[in-house]
C-alpha cells in the first residue's frame, strides 16, 4: 500500500493536472445540460403530448454505449473531431436525461391546488413558473443535476479514448502497459471526485428542501 502511495505521490503533478481537465469536461457538459434540460423539462410540462416521445427518446439515447457514442461523434462537423469538444458533446447527451426528467417530474409534483391558487390570484404563466413552480421543484431539479454530475465524472474517463484528456489518460495508459498502479492513479481520484460531488450536491439538495419545508432561522 505504501508502494502505491509513493507511486501516486511521484505523479502528483500529472494527477492534479488531469483532475483539472476532468473537472472542466464535467463542469462544461453538466452546465450545458442544465441550460438545455431545465427549459426543455419545463416545456414538456406545458406540452404533455411531447413529453412521452421526448423522454422516451432521451431514455433510448442513454442506452447507447458511451464508447460508441464518443466514436459516432468524431465525424460530425463542428461538435465532432478529436478532443475536448467532442467529449463535452457526448457527456452532455448523458447528463441531459436526468436533468430533463427531474425538471419535468419536479414541476409536475407541485401540489395542483397551489398551482391553481397561483393562477386564480392573478399570476401570469411566467410569474407562476418563476415564483411558485421552479422554487418548489428546485430540490428535485437539483437531484437531477447531482445524478448528471456523478454519471459524467465516471463517463469522462472514457473521453481519453478520443484524446480529450482527463483522468482516463492514466487508466488507458495503465491498461496498455498492464500496470494496475497507473490504472488506480486515474480511477481513485475519479472515484473520490464522484463521491465528493455527490456529497456536496446532496447536502445542497437537503438544505434547499429543508429551507422550503421550514421557516429559515
Amino acid at each position, binding site marked *: 500500500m505504501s508502494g502505491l502511495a509513493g507511486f501516486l505521490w511521484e505523479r502528483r503533478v500529472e494527477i492534479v493536472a488531469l483532475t483539472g481537465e476532468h473537472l472542466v469536461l464535467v463542469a462544461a457538459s453538466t452546465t450545458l445540460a442544465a441550460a438545455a434540460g431545465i427549459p426543455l423539462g419545463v416545456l414538456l410540462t406545458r406540452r404533455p403530448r411531447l413529453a412521452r416521445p421526448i423522454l422516451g427518446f432521451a431514455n433510448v439515447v442513454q442506452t447507447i454505449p458511451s464508447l460508441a457514442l464518443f466514436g459516432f461523434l468524431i465525424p460530425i462537423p463542428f461538435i465532432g473531431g478529436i478532443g475536448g469538444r467532442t467529449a463535452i458533446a457526448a457527456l452532455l447527451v448523458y447528463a441531459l436525461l436526468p436533468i430533463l426528467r427531474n425538471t419535468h417530474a419536479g414541476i409536475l409534483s407541485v*401540489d395542483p*391546488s*397551489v398551482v*391553481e*391558487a*397561483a*393562477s*386564480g*390570484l*392573478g*399570476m*401570469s404563466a411566467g*410569474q407562476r413558473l418563476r*415564483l*411558485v413552480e421552479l*422554487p*418548489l421543484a428546485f430540490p428535485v431539479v437539483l437531484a437531477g443535476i447531482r445524478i448528471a454530475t456523478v454519471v459524467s465524472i465516471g463517463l469522462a474517463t472514457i473521453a481519453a479514448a478520443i484524446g480529450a484528456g482527463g483522468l482516463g489518460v492514466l487508466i488507458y495508459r495503465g491498461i496498455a502497459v498492464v500496470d494496475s498502479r497507473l490504472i488506480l492513479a486515474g480511477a481513485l481520484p475519479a472515484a473520490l471526485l464522484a463521491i465528493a460531488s455527490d456529497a456536496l450536491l446532496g447536502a445542497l439538495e437537503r438544505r434547499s428542501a429543508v429551507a*422550503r*419545508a*421550514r*421557516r429559515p432561522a
Partner: protein
Amino acid sequence: MSDPALEFRGVSKSFNPGRPVLEDFTLNLAAGETVALLGPSGCGKTTALKLANRLLDADAGEIRVHGRDVRGEDPVRLRRGIGYVIQEAGLFPHWDVRRNVETVPRLLGWTDARRRERSDALLALVGLPPEEFGARRPRELSGGQRQRVGVARALAADPPLLLMDEPFGALDPIARRALQREFLQWKARLGKAVLLVTHDVREAFRLADRIAVMEEGRLRQVGTSAELSARPASAFVRDFLAEADA
C-alpha cells in the same frame, strides 16, 4: 341601479362534446350579496365559479363582472381584482404567512409599507396576530389557520367580489363552525359580494343570502333558505335540502 357584482347569462360549458357540465346557466349576484351554489359533486358548481375569473372560458352565453364582459378582460388582470379562496387553501408552502397574504399586492406593485400595513390589518381581522403568525410557514399552521390565511390572501387587494370554492370543506366540524361564524362577521364588516360553492346544505343555509340549487349542470331553483324550504321547486330540491335535517 348599479351593475350586479357578477352575472351569468345563458352560460354553457362542456369539456367533452355532447356532455355539457353547465347548461343555460343564469344567475345574478348583487353587490354585497352572498350566493351559495349548492349541489352534489359533478353538478357544475365549481365550473361556474371558474368561469367567473376565467380559469375556464364559457362555450356560450355571457358573464359580466361589475357590468363588464369578462371575455373583453385580460384574465390575469381580471383575477387580481377578484378574491379567490379554495379548499385546503392552496397556500404557497415556500413562503411565510405574511408573504402569502401579500401575494396580490406584490403582483400589483404596492410599496413595502402599504403591503405591510395591509397584511397586518388582514391577519388581525382573521384572528392571526401578525407578530405571532406572520413569519410562520403554512405547514406550521392547523387546517383552520391555513384557511384563515387563505381568506386574508383573497382579501388583500380589497376586491369587491370573492369566489370561494368549498372553502371550509376540508376542516373538522369544530374548526368549520368557527370559521363559518367568523365569515358572517367579516361579511357584515366588509360588505363583499361572495359566490360560495358548497355541497353542504347547512353551510349554504348559514352563510348565504340566497341559495342556487344545481343538478347535472342546470340551475334548479334560486331563493332564500326560507323560500327554498317553504316551496321547493322539485322533488330533487326537496330531497337535497332534507339532507340538512338528517
